């Protein structure tokens, strides 16, 4: 990438390399688009299908008690619900691509602004959880790998195993009991926007973020440890050690580069859980986030909101995975072939 900024007067050999790199990037972009677009289309189609298959219609909600069959048919026709499924999906997708997520059947307000109001909460928690997850997960995984076979390794592995057996709501409630009721360090619920009070915002999102991150910490630590331990056993690492490279150089240049791939992949897989999946955490900590909004709307039968939540989550997950894959491509050039 840095080569691009250099002046034109390059030796011919690096010019070749530049054009090869460019072609590589272009290929990567094309392949990525060829994968992301159909995935987006199919995921949104499933989302749309879900609403359609529910058989719910705003007619029931709008007309209430005195609705006759004719009334329902009239409202359905007004909303275009009498057209074939694929046509309706097309119309709906067209609106989505223009940023129009429709109107809630429950409160008659546009869906998009309601979603984005809550997205701040969820992105705060998920982002914070991701930071905690990455920092602690990498630190613990690294520590376990470099101290493999010792008690440190065993404690970390045991912790990671324990965490993954716990239902998330138990984790959240235990955190509340410890940090809110017993130690009284942190509040147990609510949300304040960082634009209002940064300190309070941090205080409020800390516990939910920890609750949400534990799974990621455990997973990342486990995967990183496995990857690194395996990489340490590889012949080239042995070779590097034999050649007398410093331990730090061996770890960062050889081991981490080759052993961290799986852990990064896990991070990509974690995104859907972090972004849309904080439902349990949000409901325990009394935060009106994005995931909770989606699940409450599902219970209310508010199909447009549910679809909106899923579509936004899909977009976020796709973007996040593109970033992870780009990182992977830089870290492990071989994996560029994959996407």
């Amino acid at each position, binding site marked *: 990438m840095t080569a691009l900024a250099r002046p034109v007067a390059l030796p011919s050999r690096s010019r070749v390399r530049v054009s090869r790199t460019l072609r590589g990037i272009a290929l990567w972009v094309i392949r990525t688009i060829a994968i992301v677009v159909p995935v987006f289309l199919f995921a949104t189609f499933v989302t749309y299908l879900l609403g359609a298959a529910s058989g719910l219609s705003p007619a029931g909600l709008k007309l209430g008690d005195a609705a006759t069959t004719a009334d329902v048919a009239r409202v359905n026709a007004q909303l275009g619900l009498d057209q074939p499924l694929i046509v309706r999906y097309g119309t709906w997708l067209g609106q989505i691509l223009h940023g129009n997520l429709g109107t809630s059947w429950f409160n008659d307000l546009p869906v998009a602004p309601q979603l984005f109001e809550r997205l701040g909460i969820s992105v705060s928690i998920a982002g914070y959880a991701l930071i905690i997850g990455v920092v602690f997960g990498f630190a613990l995984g690294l520590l376990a790998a470099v101290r493999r076979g010792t008690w440190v390794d065993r404690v970390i592995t045991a912790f990671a195993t324990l965490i993954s057996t716990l239902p998330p709501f138990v984790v959240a*409630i235990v955190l509340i009991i410890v940090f809110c009721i017993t130690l009284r360090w942190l509040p147990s619920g609510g949300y304040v926007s960082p634009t209002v009070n940064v300190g309070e915002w941090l205080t409020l999102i800390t516990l939910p973020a920890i609750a949400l991150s534990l799974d990621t910490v455990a997973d990342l630590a486990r995967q990183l440890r496995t990857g690194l331990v*395996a990489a340490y056993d590889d012949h080239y690492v042995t070779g590097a050690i034999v050649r007398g490279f410093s331990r730090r150089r061996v770890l960062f240049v050889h081991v981490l580069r080759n052993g961290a*791939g799986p852990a990064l992949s896990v991070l990509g*897989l974690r995104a859907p*859980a972090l972004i849309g999946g904080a439902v349990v955490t949000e409901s325990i900590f009394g935060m009106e986030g994005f995931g909770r909004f989606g*699940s409450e709307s599902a219970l209310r039968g508010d199909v447009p909101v549910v679809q909106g939540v899923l579509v936004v989550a899909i977009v976020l997950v796709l973007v996040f995975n593109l970033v992870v894959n780009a990182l992977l491509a830089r870290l492990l050039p071989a994996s560029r*072939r994959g996407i």
Partner: protein
Amino acid sequence: MFRRAIRSPLGATSAAIIAVVVVLSVLGPLIAPYDPLAQDAAHILASPSAAHWLGTDYVGRDVLSRLLDGSPLSLLSAAEAVGIAFALGVTPGLLSVYLGRVFEWISLRVIDALITLPFLVFAIAMTALLGNGLQQAMFAVGILIAPAFYRVTRAAALSAAGSQYVEAARLAGASPLWVLRTHLWGKVAPSVAVTTANSMAAGLVIVSSLTFLGIGVQPPAPTWGGILADDLGYLFQQPFGPLYPTIIIMVIVGALNGFADALRDTSGITGHVRLLGRRRSRPRRSAAINPALEVTNG
């Protein structure tokens, strides 16, 4: 492959725990000291005693009896979800290696799309919009776990299909079905078994989360997740209440995951998976990765 896994200490312990739980869940309804639905209004939220080893719940039912009686339903519901995931994941996973590029490409994109969906929100939406019941919830969970089965099956099938003996068999004129039965299944089965164990564990946790949110519950029939969610509502009156179902869930989930680990270690499964993924699996000896579920908190 199971025999070898059971010989390792981890595998043996895990298998023993799983066996005990399965036996208990078969015998549970028979050995339960009380009727799990019998209420005793005079003794609600009682602490453990000689009469009630684990105390009583909020309407005076014997906790031990409920946990025992609830085990078949808890295990079966998780097994049902895994069964659906198995059916939807394994076959396309195998076929994706043989049916040519078009099927491969389409099935890969469908699986990517399913992984993209936010797990718990989608499960809730599906359950709530299609009628709030245990069956709907299990179906939703099954569909969402299916990608894990697809991916491990495909990865294992790919690596085996590229091996020389498979090629030799094919050159010798063996039918694809014969190759599948004799050579491939033996390679794919351990991966699928690992995923099954991991998915059972994840299924139990997910079902208890859904129950906690009031999705797919049908009282008074007890399930571990249901008992846990109910008891949490009485945390302040009976702090130990939620402890027992939590421990049971932790132990069985731990045992299932432990067994999966033992299986993987002893059958030398390799390869890792990622979203929006690769077209050709690149087995790496160095990256023995659990490709199964990364969705428990979804």
